[in-house]
């Protein structure tokens, strides 16, 4: 019964989405306040209905109701409760429901906090948001219904894929979706601005908090996924330039570019057309990612034919939104008035360079991801575009962007002094170059990337720190005065600084790759094996029974110079329900590096084949990402960016904004 309520709520949500699309849009055209206000209520009702539907599905999974097809295929009564819940989005239908739930959450946020917005802008934005919702709800109900019944119900479910039975599944997808789907708001506002033919700094000020939320979640979501891959795969890889990863990286790159250009628009009223373009691009990439992954064209051209209904449906949605928005852009963008002149060497100019590099990297990733597909369709030739290609192209572009970051961060608005900035950054440049040189000498030319990334990381960190200090302190200024100036700097400045520091920290983490060690060996009980500066000794091999698996676990002691520093226990898990095995790596963080051990199935003679790694600085990769996301959150806390601040700021703009510029 609860399942039917959920199903029914989803159908009602479709109706609410329809109302949200049509009524406020019509109201905005005829100038009827009452009709425009419908958008707000429809968004809230839609959110409530989708939340009910989602709760119903969660309930079915928790109760192991195997009369629901989705539960029977993806759950098992023996699974721990957390995986029963996470399993809701561990499959196609459920993850699409999570997608629309998050879409509805963002719609409801606009409805709740958009009171300060111009009525027409809000009505149009909610209408566009409603249209996206309408399309995806129709997709779910027509092709991917999670509430489909299975009669007669099986006695036991097929179980969730064992690799997905991990806390990572509970964390990673919702975070990533918050980011992915969060860009829908930016998209809706861009479309609304285009429909109105007007866009200004107030628009930027309202959109920026949503951008920061989406971007921060996307950053942390990608990092969480990468960390999950790292400890699950058994060899410590964390980024593979896999089409699926690329699908999440592209919106991130476009979103990062947007975040920077929207700052220009907010502060200087420049780059309007470009900012709108990026807003459309960021969400288009989210949609493209959804299409690529859901339709299966990327995994295999043939898979597309397996269920053409889903693939074609998403393709239609994709075509409608991307073509529609770009057509709107081409038609309306020329009407947007440009403001804010700036010299090529200026903060604005640097942000244009940032945008160029990021969007080129993004386009390269897109090109590399789709090229083999196109080539095979056109010529029948099968090629692989793998990590080496992306590292050489997109990687190089991104490293260049990282190098430019401290310069842009230090340049003044309107007209900057590149020579002066270079002088201020001298210390950072020297420190970075010295680090790179020492690193290269240490490695003896074994890797070009590692010393380069390390030098760049040091440069970005020190360069950012210099700028923070220089903002507050000039030679001759008393410490107390400097401190009070530091406290007076806007939070969004510190947010930006923290995010840039995060980039530097991630670079340092990446550079650690070149300094690591790997040992492949068959471990015997009591016989130590060297890996980097540590030695690892196998203590025993034990068999254990878990909730829905059995595992062979191999406790080991990690020693440094004869002193035990850690106990680790890598394992192999056997899941009977699907006859699958997973690798549970044994990990220990020492300083910022990790000792990483993955085992194969133990042999009958009490030995176990293993891969052992010492990965120096590796945790910095994710700590850096966390710092970036935290930087976003810090900016979000800035008083001037609070939700709804747009209009209050606008009212006081004459008094406040002018001296600040």
């Amino acid at each position, binding site marked *: 019964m609860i399942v039917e309520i959920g199903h029914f709520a989803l159908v009602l949500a479709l109706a609410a989405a329809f109302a949200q699309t049509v009524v406020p849009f019509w109201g905005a055209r005829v100038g009827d306040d009452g009709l425009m206000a419908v958008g707000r209520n429809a968004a809230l009702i839609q959110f409530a209905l989708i939340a009910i539907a989602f709760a119903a599905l969660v309930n079915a999974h928790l109760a192991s109701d195997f009369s629901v097809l989705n539960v029977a295929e*993806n759950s098992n009564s023996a699974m721990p409760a957390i995986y029963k819940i996470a399993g809701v*989005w561990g*499959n*196609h239908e459920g*993850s699409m429901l999570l997608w629309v739930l998050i879409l509805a959450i963002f719609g409801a946020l606009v409805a709740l906090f958009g009171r300060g917005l111009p009525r027409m802008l809000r009505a149009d934005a909610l209408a566009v948001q409603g249209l996206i919702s309408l399309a995806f709800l129709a997709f779910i109900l027509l092709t991917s219904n999670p509430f489909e019944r299975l009669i007669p119900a099986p006695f036991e479910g097929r179980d969730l*894929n064992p*690799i*997905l039975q991990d806390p990572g599944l509970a964390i*990673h*997808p919702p975070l990533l979706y918050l980011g992915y789907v969060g860009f829908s708001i930016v998209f809706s506002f861009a479309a609304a601005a285009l429909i109105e033919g007007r866009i200004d700094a107030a628009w930027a000020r309202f959109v920026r908090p949503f951008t920061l939320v989406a971007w921060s979640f996307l950053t942390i979501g990608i990092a969480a*996924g*990468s960390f999950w*891959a790292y400890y*699950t*795969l058994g060899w410590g890889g964390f*980024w*593979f330039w*896999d089409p699926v990863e690329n699908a*999440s990286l592209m919106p991130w790159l476009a979103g990062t570019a947007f975040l920077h250009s929207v700052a220009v628009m907010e502060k200087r009223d420049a780059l309007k*057309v470009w900012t709108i373009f990026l807003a459309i691009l960021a969400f288009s990439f989210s949609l493209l990612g*959804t299409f690529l*992954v*859901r339709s*299966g064209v990327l995994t*295999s051209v*043939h*898979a597309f034919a*397996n269920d053409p209904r*889903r*693939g074609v449906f998403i393709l239609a949605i994709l075509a409608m939104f991307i073509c529609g928005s770009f057509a709107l852009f081409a038609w309306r963008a020329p009407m947007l008035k440009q403001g804010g*002149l700036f010299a*090529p060497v200026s903060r604005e100019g640097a942000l244009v360079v940032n945008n*160029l590099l990021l*969007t080129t990297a993004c386009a390269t990733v897109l*090109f*590399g991801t789709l*090229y083999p597909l196109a*080539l095979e369709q056109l*010529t029948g*030739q*099968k*090629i*692989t575009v*793998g*990590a*080496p*290609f992306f590292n*050489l*192209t997109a990687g190089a572009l991104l490293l260049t962007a990282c190098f430019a970051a401290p310069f842009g961060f230090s340049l*003044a608005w309107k007209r900057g002094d590149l020579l002066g900035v270079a002088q201020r950054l001298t210390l950072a440049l020297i420190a970075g170059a010295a680090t790179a040189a020492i690193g290269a000498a240490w490695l003896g030319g074994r890797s070009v990337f590692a010393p380069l990334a390390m030098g760049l990381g040091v440069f970005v960190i020190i360069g950012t720190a210099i700028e923070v200090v220089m903002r507050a302190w000039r030679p001759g200024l008393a410490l107390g005065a400097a401190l009070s*100036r530091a406290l007076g700097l806007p939070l969004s400045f510190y947010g930006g600084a923290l995010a840039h520091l995060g980039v530097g920290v991630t670079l340092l983490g990446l550079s650690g790759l070149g300094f690591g060690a790997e040992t*492949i060996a068959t471990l015997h009980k009591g016989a130590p094996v060297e890996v980097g500066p540590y030695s690892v000794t196998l203590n025993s091999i034990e068999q254990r029974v878990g909730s829905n698996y059995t595992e062979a676990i191999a406790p080991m002691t990690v020693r440094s110079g004869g002193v035990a520093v850690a106990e680790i226990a890598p394992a192999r898990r056997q899941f009977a329900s699907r*006859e699958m*095995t997973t690798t549970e790596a044994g990990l220990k963080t020492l300083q910022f590096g990790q000792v990483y051990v993955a085992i*194969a*199935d133990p042999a009958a003679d009490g030995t176990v*084949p293993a*891969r052992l790694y010492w990965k120096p600085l590796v945790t910095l990769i994710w700590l850096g990402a966390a710092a970036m996301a935290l930087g976003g959150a810090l900016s979000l806390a800035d008083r001037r960016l609070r939700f709804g601040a747009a209009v209050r700021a606008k009212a006081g703009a004459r008094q406040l904004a002018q*001296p600040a*510029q």
Partner: protein
Amino acid sequence: MMTRRRRDPFSLWEKVADAVGRMREPWQSHRRASRTNPHPNPSPVGEGNCAPLHLRHVLTARGKLLFLLPLLALLAGHALAVEPDEVMKNPALEARARALSEQLRCLVCQNESVDDSEAPLARDIRLLIRERIREGESNDQVRAYLVSRYGDFILLKPPFQADTWLLWLSPALILGLGLAAALYARRGTPRSTPALTAEEEARLAALTGDRASAGSPLPLGEGQG
């Protein structure tokens, strides 16, 4: 063995099956299982085993891992990528073998290198590389042999040739286009704001004069935006 098979929709699969067929006994079961499924990749929209894989496909990189699972199920006991018994005694040769296998794609996985893959076919290729290196072949010779056998598909880094130059040059082309667009957008905008007229100068002087006499200089920190 060296001849390439005729091109058909499943040509890659033919190669894979051919290679698998040459393997040792235990893998026969894998071959049979695979024959019934004419494509090596799991279909993320299809029914059956792959259905629960969708999320992973949208979310993370481990799509490739998923395909390994059915193989692993059939092959309990083979569970690491490079295994201890594969490692060559000569560290220089082993380093060459590793470097080579890192640049090759595992043919049955989605996007994993031969070096990282746990698939039996990847192990087979790793052993093949080591055998050829031991026989004294150069890296290029080994690579050429593998390409002749499996096609360009096996190279993670696509070669620069007639059908890939567009791919390789795409970043430069896109960057160039972007630069051109940026310059085009600047065209027509004045280089700088026009100089103030005498009247404006006078007004400004009056305004700033007022301000100075009122004794309110700009506080520190202003003007940074």
